[in-house]
């Protein structure tokens, strides 16, 4: 009846996951009770859960990423403490637990922190920057988000029901095969990624179509803000790379569930094929993450330097070059597998070539600052911190792309330090910069600068204190994923790294404080103009938060930096004139399709993991029925009458006029 599921699935003998799980459960219940008791449930349902508004969905993506950041972060803290104490001892985490933690840490940080964070920011901002009212497929957008959330839910469920994979975040076979990993851990891993992978693919298709087909009047390709370009590149990569992950995991699952022989030791299976396939997805994946971050930094550096982006066309070229080359370098993840010297050298050089457009980007940001008038608001601090940190990560990256150097550094702590260097220094700093930069747009008030700056400095410092020691440990021959070790020389560096994580945690606490303080002082921090940073692109041309329809009229774009031009040119006056006539606006109707579909996906995923076949069928039928019901509805849009549009827009213009006249007096 319940497949493999029985009481032994609950880890009664493991206090850490049990207590953690209990706390989370209590917290969720408390929030739910509070929501219901205060009567917020209808609001939550109508305004958020069923919302198909790209801004709301973007915010929910970022919320999911933030919560998962705390989960992944606590894994990181446990790992650092374990390695600090596990010198000639077992530390406080037994291997079967420690191995789950590093696997979960990697999986969560990549799939459920970095991905939703950048997808959330793209969702929130790209339609605004393009001057349009929504993404191409609003309901699918909601489906995509909720499927991602399903994946995250399943991963976290493994904490208390069963176990998570103990194979590392890429679950290499044969270790991940049934014979060596008989538990449900790998199944949790694979099914969560399959489900959230569908969500990611949907988001990718949606954003590609949005950028290519939905742009306001005059928004030619070479007038798009840099963030839109990097969004396009990143989502093209999603569309091209995520199906590879889906296929690869499908093969692994077929091996595990139906006795196929794709990656088994027996009957002619080929584990090296898994390596090739997973990295053919995995390497583009890192560019999927970092390209949007590059876009964010382009916006931030240009805005806070008070200048257009230097070498815009060069940046576009560099972005698209990275997009293409990123598919040609996957083999550098396994130089040490014994491929011939020619193959190694060619992939090594290809990997270095990708550093060229990346280097160009750094220099273009540098020259954007040159001759600027730089304001060091929090987003700009993240941007400068990123540039310095990312160069170092780039250096070590090119270093491990040199095959002979990689023969010494492969899978070492040096490598761990390298990819944290680029993912934290690149993606996470970028996500935080974007968060600080666009928060006022999403919520209508700015974030507290003092706490924001404190968060930056603690994170920046904490990053170096954590990861420089790991570089050194790698140079001392330390490999990754060691639950304990006997080499005395490694130990001091593990202590320093554990201390660094403490500093990083203070950074995270500062960020939480920043949000709390800002919400409490929101009236003082209110952004009435819609343009708190003196911005350059169209998202600042509407109110903060924007009305549901974003723009009462499609803006008419005449060049790069569309809003800057509007502010600078005679169009300024057009703000002061009453716009000719407002029209009715049709907007997509909210739909619970995404939520219900994800509900059935959760059931189906859980049932597949535990081999509860009747429940799998139930979930499948439910998901299909949801789509049919959605397809059956008669009204998928509702009309906002012209009067209402006019009323909303007039308030916005009133506030903006204040800004313009103020600008005139300075």
């Amino acid at each position, binding site marked *: 009846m319940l497949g493999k599921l029985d009481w032994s699935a609950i880890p009664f003998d493991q206090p850490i996951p049990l207590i953690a799980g209990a706390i989370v459960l209590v917290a969720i219940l408390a929030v739910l009770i509070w929501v219901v008791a205060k009567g917020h449930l209808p609001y939550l349902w109508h305004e958020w859960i069923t919302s198909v508004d790209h801004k709301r969905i973007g915010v929910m993506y970022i919320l999911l990423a933030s919560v998962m950041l705390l989960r992944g972060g606590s894994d990181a803290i446990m790992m650092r403490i374990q390695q600090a104490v596990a010198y000639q001892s077992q530390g406080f985490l037994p291997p079967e637990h420690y191995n789950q933690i590093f696997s979960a840490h990697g999986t969560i940080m990549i799939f459920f922190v970095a991905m939703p964070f950048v997808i959330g920011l793209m969702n929130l901002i790209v339609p605004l920057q393009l001057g349009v009212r929504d993404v191409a497929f609003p309901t699918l957008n909601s489906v995509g988000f909720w499927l991602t959330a399903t994946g995250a839910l399943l991963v976290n469920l493994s904490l208390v029901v069963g176990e998570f994979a103990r194979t590392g975040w890429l679950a290499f076979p044969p270790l991940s095969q049934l014979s060596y990993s008989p538990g449900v851990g790998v199944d949790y891993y694979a099914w969560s990624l399959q489900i959230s992978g569908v969500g990611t693919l949907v988001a990718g298709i949606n954003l590609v179509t949005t950028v290519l087909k939905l742009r306001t*009047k005059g928004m*030619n390709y070479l007038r798009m803000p840099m963030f839109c370009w990097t969004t396009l590149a990143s989502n093209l990569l999603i569309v091209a790379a995520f199906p*590879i992950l889906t296929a690869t995991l499908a*093969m692994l699952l077929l091996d595990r569930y139906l*006795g196929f022989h794709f990656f088994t030791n027996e009957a*002619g299976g080929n584990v090296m094929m898994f390596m090739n*396939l997973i990295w053919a997805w995995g390497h583009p994946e890192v560019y999927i993450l970092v390209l949007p971050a590059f876009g964010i930094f382009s916006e931030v550096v240009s805005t806070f330097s008070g200048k257009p982006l230097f070498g815009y066309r060069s940046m576009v070229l560099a972005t698209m070059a990275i997009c293409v080359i990123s598919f040609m370098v996957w083999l550098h993840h396994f130089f040490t597998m014994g491929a011939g010297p020619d193959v190694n050298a060619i992939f090594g050089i290809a990997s270095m070539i990708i550093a060229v457009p990346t280097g160009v980007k750094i220099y273009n940001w540098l020259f954007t600052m040159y001759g600027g008038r730089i304001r060091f608001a929090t987003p700009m601090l993240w941007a400068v911190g990123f540039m310095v940190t990312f160069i170092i990560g780039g250096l070590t990256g090119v270093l491990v792309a040199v095959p002979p150097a990689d023969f010494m550094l492969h899978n070492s702590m040096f490598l761990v330090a390298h990819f944290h260097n680029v993912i934290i220094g690149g993606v996470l700093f970028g996500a935080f910069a974007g968060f600080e930069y666009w928060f006022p747009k999403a919520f209508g008030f700015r974030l507290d600068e003092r706490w924001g700056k404190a968060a930056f400095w603690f994170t920046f410092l904490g990053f170096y204190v954590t990861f420089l020691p790991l570089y050194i440990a790698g140079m001392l021959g330390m490999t990754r994923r060691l639950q304990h070790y006997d080499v005395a020389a490694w130990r001091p560096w593990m202590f320093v790294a554990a201390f660094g994580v403490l500093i990083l945690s203070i950074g995270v606490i500062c960020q939480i404080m920043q949000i709390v303080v800002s919400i409490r002082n929101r009236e003082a921090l209110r952004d009435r103009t819609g343009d708190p940073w003196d911005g350059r692109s169209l998202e600042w041309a509407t109110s903060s938060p924007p009305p549901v329809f974003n723009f009462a009229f*499609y803006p008419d774009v005449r060049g790069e930096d569309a809003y800057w031009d509007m502010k600078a040119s005679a169009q300024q006056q057009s703000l002061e004139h009453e716009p000719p006539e407002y029209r009715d606006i049709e907007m997509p109707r909210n739909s619970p399709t995404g939520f219900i579909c994800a509900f059935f996906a959760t059931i189906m995923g859980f049932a597949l993991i535990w081999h509860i076949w009747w429940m799998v069928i139930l979930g499948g039928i439910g998901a299909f029925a949801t789509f049919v019901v959605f397809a059956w509805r008669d009204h998928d849009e509702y009309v906002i009458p012209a009067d209402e549009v006019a009323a909303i827009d007039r308030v916005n213009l009133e506030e903006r006029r204040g800004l313009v006249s103020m600008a005139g007096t300075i």
Partner: protein
Amino acid sequence: MAMTATAGRAHADPHHIGVVIEHPGPAPKRTVTAYGFWVFLLSDIVMFSCFFAAYAVLSGQTAGGPKGSEIFEQRNVAIETVCLLLSSFTCGMASIAADVRNRFWFYLGMTVTCVLGLIFLVIEFREFSDLVARGYGPSRSAFLSSFFSLVGCHGLHVSAGILWLLTMMAQVFAKGFRADVLRRMMCFALFWHALDIVWVGVFSVVYLLGSGV
């Protein structure tokens, strides 16, 4: 939505050098939907290409089991191919019928498509169950694993397509040729044709190349 492209700067530039065609604005819904679905199909083809790649890598790994030439039956594959190619034609007829809002030809086209798809699936299912019965199931060898997955993945797509097809017929029955129904019909037709193209790949790579070895 104005679809007229205005050529900015052109009047100041008699030689039409550096003409900037002003982007006309957001595309109409039908274009957007079709475009998005194309992008989806591309991603689906990427997924198929992984299974093709796996088949190419593993096709020699028979682990003492049968080779392709020992298990493929040309006659069945020929019937399958004819069914699928014909069904693409009838699916095209159904789309045209939908565009001109002719219910009779729409239902007829869709029904024939459905029947042809089902014949294809039945033949494939019999081929599979026959192989399994002879002990040549997917767990026999890596070659058979990759064969079953590649062909089976296409078969699953066809099954999903038939489910979609029936849903489309029910939609037209209940809702008529509404704009959103027509958009979905267009996507379905794209999907069905794409499956045909994938089958051409499967037919050539698996059955034609495989039977020679």
